[in-house]
């Protein structure tokens, strides 16, 4: 009897070994992430003060605050949103609600996949060629925001499409049967239902734009500005580029300010992430379908 059970026991042992291995791999993947965030919080928090968040850098960035970089990142994120949200959501609506399954739609899909895959520094080159030089916007908030917008588009388009597709077809049928036009159905019925999904996607897209450095290197970011930018044609400091500058270009930079700046960017970006997660889980809990 025991000899019959022998292979069975062996497979059981292999199974538990395998499960342990996968648990271990997952732990090794996850622990550094948490460690990294915790470490930055611990090292960066001591730098926080009223002055750090509200003053301009002084003494070649070694003293003072990082206000111009914070404001710059806010401007760039808003500028990106202004352009990419209407365009991206409209494109998502087109693909989910209007587009037929034909060659053109497949071409649009291929284009979106490729936009998502283009390296961020290549977006920087493109922005330099089109916005900075050809359209003569110069290195400015406008050029940088437009460059970041196009980079963000694929995320917004595909999450919008997904959010609208998940709305059950019966909503469309009922609305149309009540005499609503296609656009009325989309605007009054489908969009409100898909809104949480769309907002989540928009935030995740903007989160990426806020943290990017390479696309703004030659399109709008600047090393140091004594005052805040006055118009969208001015160049600007930005948190990601500032982190790059103070960790590689400025000798004798105090460690505390470096970690403090990183923590500010991390709070900005992960805060957006958190908001997106909350919106998504709330919407899921409230959903009636």
């Amino acid at each position, binding site marked *: 009897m025991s000899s019959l059970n022998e292979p069975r026991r062996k*497979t059981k042992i*292999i*199974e538990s070994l*395998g*499960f342990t291995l*996968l*648990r271990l*791999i*997952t732990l090794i*993947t*996850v622990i*550094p*992430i948490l460690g*990294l*965030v915790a*470490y*930055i919080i611990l090292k960066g928090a001591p730098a926080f003060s009223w002055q750090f968040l509200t003053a301009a850098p002084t003494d070649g960035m070694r003293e003072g605050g990082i206000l111009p970089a914070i404001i710059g990142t806010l401007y760039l994120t808003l500028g990106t949103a202004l352009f990419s949200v209407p365009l991206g959501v*409209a*494109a998502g*609506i087109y*693909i989910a609600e*209007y587009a037929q399954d034909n060659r053109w739609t497949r071409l*649009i*899909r291929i284009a979106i*996949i*490729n*936009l998502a*895959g283009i*390296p*961020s*520094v*290549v977006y920087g*080159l*493109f922005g330099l*060629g089109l916005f900075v030089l*050809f359209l003569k916007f110069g290195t400015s908030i406008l050029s940088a925001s437009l460059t970041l917008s*196009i980079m963000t*588009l694929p995320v917004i388009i595909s999450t919008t499409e997904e959010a609208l597709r998940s709305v059950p077809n019966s909503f469309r049928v009922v609305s149309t049967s009540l005499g609503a*036009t*296609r*656009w009325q159905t989309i605007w009054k019925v489908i969009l409100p239902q898909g809104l949480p999904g769309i907002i989540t996607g928009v935030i*995740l897209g903007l989160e990426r734009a806020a*943290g990017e*450095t*390479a696309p703004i290197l*030659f399109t709008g970011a600047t090393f140091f500005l004594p005052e805040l930018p006055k118009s969208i044609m001015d160049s600007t400091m930005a948190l*990601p*580029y500032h*982190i*790059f500058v103070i*960790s*590689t270009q400025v000798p004798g930079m105090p460690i505390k300010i470096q970690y403090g700046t*990183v923590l500010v*960017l*991390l709070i900005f*970006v*992960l805060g*957006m*992430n958190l908001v997106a*997660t909350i919106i998504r889980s709330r919407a899921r809990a409230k959903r009636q379908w």
Partner: protein
Amino acid sequence: MGPKKQIGNVMITSIIKICGYSSILFVGLILVFLLKEGLPALKDVPLTSIFNVRWYPIEGYFGILPLVFGTLLVTISATLIALPFGIGTAIYISEIAPRWIKEILKPIVEILAGIPSVVLGFIGILVIVPFFRKFLDLPTGLTAFTGAVLLGLIAIPTIVSVAEDALNTVPPGYRQAGLALGATRWQTIWGVTVPSAKTGILTAIMLGIGRALGETMAVMMVTGNAPVMPSGLNALFEPVRTMTATIASEMGEVATGSQHYQVLFLIGIFLFLFSLVINIIASAVSTKQRKRAERILS
């Protein structure tokens, strides 16, 4: 319906249609402007000196081979590092973890996806580089390997989420059939679930490679920026320079329209083409999978 309403409808529909097609326009624009600024390089610099091993732009040497091989070295190593962890974590989350652990793990992986690459580069410089120098007893910690580790970390969230999606789309009936035949869960995972999701997992790997290939800041900050030809396995522990890092670090200093400027755009064209190929392979693989699934279900 009044004629006014009719016109409004038509207008909105056409605006939305134009927005829908905008992605094609942007891909076209990107290609046109890369070609416009980069192609003139081929007129002034002969092909033989572009496909050469010496990158020293100040004296007019524009050999991009060290940069291409630097990119290959770092990207391939990063993929090898990210694969076991990415796929392993995806399998654990999708097949083994109880629900509450899943709910904890997924946001953590999303956090990693959200951390800007410049932050990872920063931690790379301050923590990982000194650690590797001491631990591996190297003259400098700014090496291809350091870059590969960071890039691996950056590629992991992409691999995990796409591979997990692929595993989730395997119908539960497949797993039940495996278990009903007397296979253990472990045997079902490797004999049934993973093979059924293999095209999706392949897509995950391709997208992970694409992510690593295009990454700029982190890799520029920790690989030491030395445009030398990598030779042998030792090169992994020596400084290198990738294509992306070269563009990012040199474009700020060149005169618009100069030969150096044009060659940097030419490198951009190559990067664009690389990512195009990788993404087309990735999407071709997943379309094939969808078609097969449709055949089975119909």
